[in-house]
């Protein structure tokens, strides 16, 4: 049981970080399907720069920079250029998945994965029995995640910036009459989301593991996307949704180890996804909330005439 909870935290942290990124984007009216691409880019950049410089901090800073730059490009494509948000988001994901695999070969001449010894510090480690196992062996980012979520809540729900962001997403006309440029608000939301995705990717590669592997995000960006909807666009809600999906993941992993003899492996692997479908259905009960940013989304689809 302790092991399951420990794995839950480890699986959930990247999900929660990326879901928080999704909340920022969604509040600004952007259905951000590029989360996955940003996440894997963050994972790769961290490992690559950390391995090259020997500094994990530099790796994370580089990842944040690259992901924010990609987010700015995404904003430029869906905003000023007027491309479809969904298609451009999926394009961003493809670029991230393909680009990191390509860069792995082109820069490091590797296929499959890249190992590194430069990883994030783990404040508590070495505990092998008792309830202490739950908190042991987690990277510093796992410990920081609750603080980041709390900060996101303050920014979104208790700051003037958050009000402007929500107005831009929900009712761009209201933002405009308040002297706020909705397009600039969207850019800011996307930049924040980019930075959070970089952190999520970094936790995946140098927090929980010691390597970057092609397609290592394995759909986590999309699960985070679901967590945003499940969490009713609220940072705390999305965090708990991410925790729930992390739990589902942990059950999958643990039961693979323990019960594969009796139950077919494929069924065990299905568990997280079955739970996800269930969660999405449950999330539908809060549908009214999810309509809130639709005007912002509509404005992106159909700009002013």
């Amino acid at each position, binding site marked *: 049981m302790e092991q399951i909870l420990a794995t839950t935290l480890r699986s959930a942290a990247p999900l929660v970080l990326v879901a928080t990124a999704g909340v920022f984007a969604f509040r600004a009216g952007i259905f951000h399907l590029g989360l996955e691409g940003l996440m894997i880019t963050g994972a790769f950049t961290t490992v690559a720069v950390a391995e090259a410089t020997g500094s994990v901090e530099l790796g994370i800073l580089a990842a944040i920079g690259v992901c924010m730059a990609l987010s700015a490009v995404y904003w430029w494509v869906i905003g000023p250029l007027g491309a479809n948000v969904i298609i451009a988001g999926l394009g961003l994901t493809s670029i991230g998945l393909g680009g990191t695999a390509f860069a792995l070969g082109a820069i490091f001449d590797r296929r499959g994965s890249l190992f590194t010894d430069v990883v994030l510090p783990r404040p508590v480690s070495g505990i092998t029995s008792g309830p202490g196992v739950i908190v042991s062996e987690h990277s510093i980012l796992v410990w920081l995640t609750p603080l980041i979520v709390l900060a996101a809540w*303050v920014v979104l729900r*208790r*700051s*003037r*910036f958050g*009000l*402007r962001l*929500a*107005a831009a997403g*929900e*009712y761009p*006309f*209201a*933002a*405009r*009459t*308040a*002297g706020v440029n909705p397009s600039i608000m969207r850019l800011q939301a996307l930049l924040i989301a980019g930075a959070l995705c970089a952190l999520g990717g970094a936790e995946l590669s140098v927090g929980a593991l010691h390597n970057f592997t092609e397609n290592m995000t394995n759909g986590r960006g999309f699960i985070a996307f679901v967590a945003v909807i499940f969490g009713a666009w609220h940072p705390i809600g999305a965090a708990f949704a991410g925790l729930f999906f992390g739990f589902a993941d942990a059950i999958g992993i643990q039961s693979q180890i323990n019960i594969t003899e009796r139950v077919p492996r494929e069924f065990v692997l299905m568990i997280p996804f079955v739970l996800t479908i269930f969660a999405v259905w449950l999330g539908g009960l809060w549908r009214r909330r999810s309509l*809130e940013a639709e005007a912002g989304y509509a404005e992106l689809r159909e700009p002013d*005439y």
Partner: protein
Amino acid sequence: MTVPSSPASAGVPAVRCRSLGVSFGSVRALHRVSLDLAPGRIHALVGQNGAGKTTLAKVLGGLQAPDTGDVHIAGREIPPGDVRAARAAGLAMVHQHFSLPPSFTVAEALELTAARPGGRPLYRRNELHRRWRDDVAEIGGEAVLSTRIRDLPVETRQSLEIVRAMAADARILMLDEPTALLTPAAIDALFERLRRLREDGVTILVVLHKLREVAAVADTVSVLRDGELVLGPNEMSEVSQGRLSDAIVGPASQADRAVGVEAAPGAEQQTLLELARVSSRASAFEPGLGGIDLSVEAGEIVGIAGVEGNGQRSLVSVIAGLNAVTEGSVLLGGTDVTRAPPARRRRRGLRLVPFDRNSEGISRRAPLWLNQSALRLIGRRRRRLPLISLRQYKRQAATEMDQWRVRYDAVTQPAESLSGGNVQRLILSRELAPGLQVLVAAQPTRGLDFSATSFVRRSLRGLRDAGAGVLLVSSDLDELFELSDRVLVIYGGRIVAGFEAPYERRAVGDAMTGARR
């Protein structure tokens, strides 16, 4: 062209603009508009749909950058299209469409617009409440602060827009068609409020449609026509009603065609539309219907009066076949259509002018000709082949729209490119085509200008005289009294009273507010 005027006023004009010009593509929205507004007075701006009133208001408020010309507020030049600069100079605006985000609480919405760079970035809930408590004293006090905008009644939302505008210490208040959504009582309250603001020295510019309202509240009046300022600002006492109407409509306005329908032979004294104990489920915005009995005979106009949100939309939806009936039955020309889909009702001669013309009356992206010929497409004419001739449809649509004086460039342009009044004309040109038996008209003149309004009213009367039945749903009591043979009052999803001419305004008003049941 521009009539040079502006009464000699002490000091600088509150608002001054010089040769403003704005074009949207090939359409000229404003052309060389110059205007001086004296401080401390109520100025009315009138004009037909598409005359450029809203555009002018937006330019003055900094929401729209002009192509040419400049704007000075209280003597200071405002950079084009800068909302913040206009606000800093003391100008606040109440928009035609509500401008507060529906999911925000009142306190959050007020904070959104008041937030200025330099204020503390974070806030606490009770801090917001303390700050805005006094501003909302008139519209319900502190309790209203935690209410969400979408849960507020229309009147309160409007008042809140004014509160929000005045909270910025505005010295100049602009209101774009503030009366369009209000009941007569709420309009009176609004005008009273404007007069009190004038006492405090606030300059007010209000865009209005109805000359009666202009006469009731304005000190001066200006008229826009086709994007040009053709009159004013003139003192109200200096201009006659007739001169004002002429200025609005312009010279040699061609007469609209009279509307005729082919009255079905022997249709006299036949019940065309009947609702028997009809109930429906409540929607997000309105109570459901609670057992409505109603009939419309051939050759009569039945008016439905009521404060907005008392089931009018449900009623129209149920008749149109868009909402399910939970109990009771709907009959068209004696045939039960309770479960019939909308198209079948249409073929039986039901026609509909819906509440929200942009979302329910047209397909926004579809070309004009397709919108115009939608009814012909569901018609059941025997053809040898189930094919249509595009060229013939387009030509016929163009003919119809020309007859209804819809202003457009090409039949292939999307319907959403038309202005509000033109969209209504487009809808009327489609719905009032031959074959009509019953017309359900929901707010058919809302937001329409003077000449379009009288045109629609003439058309409704024409329909009645030709033997059709009309159900007129309106929040404009004058309109109901003028047109209706009977007026029914809807309250809380029920018909609570019925009146016949001569109407007593007071009694109808009491029934509308539920004071008399």
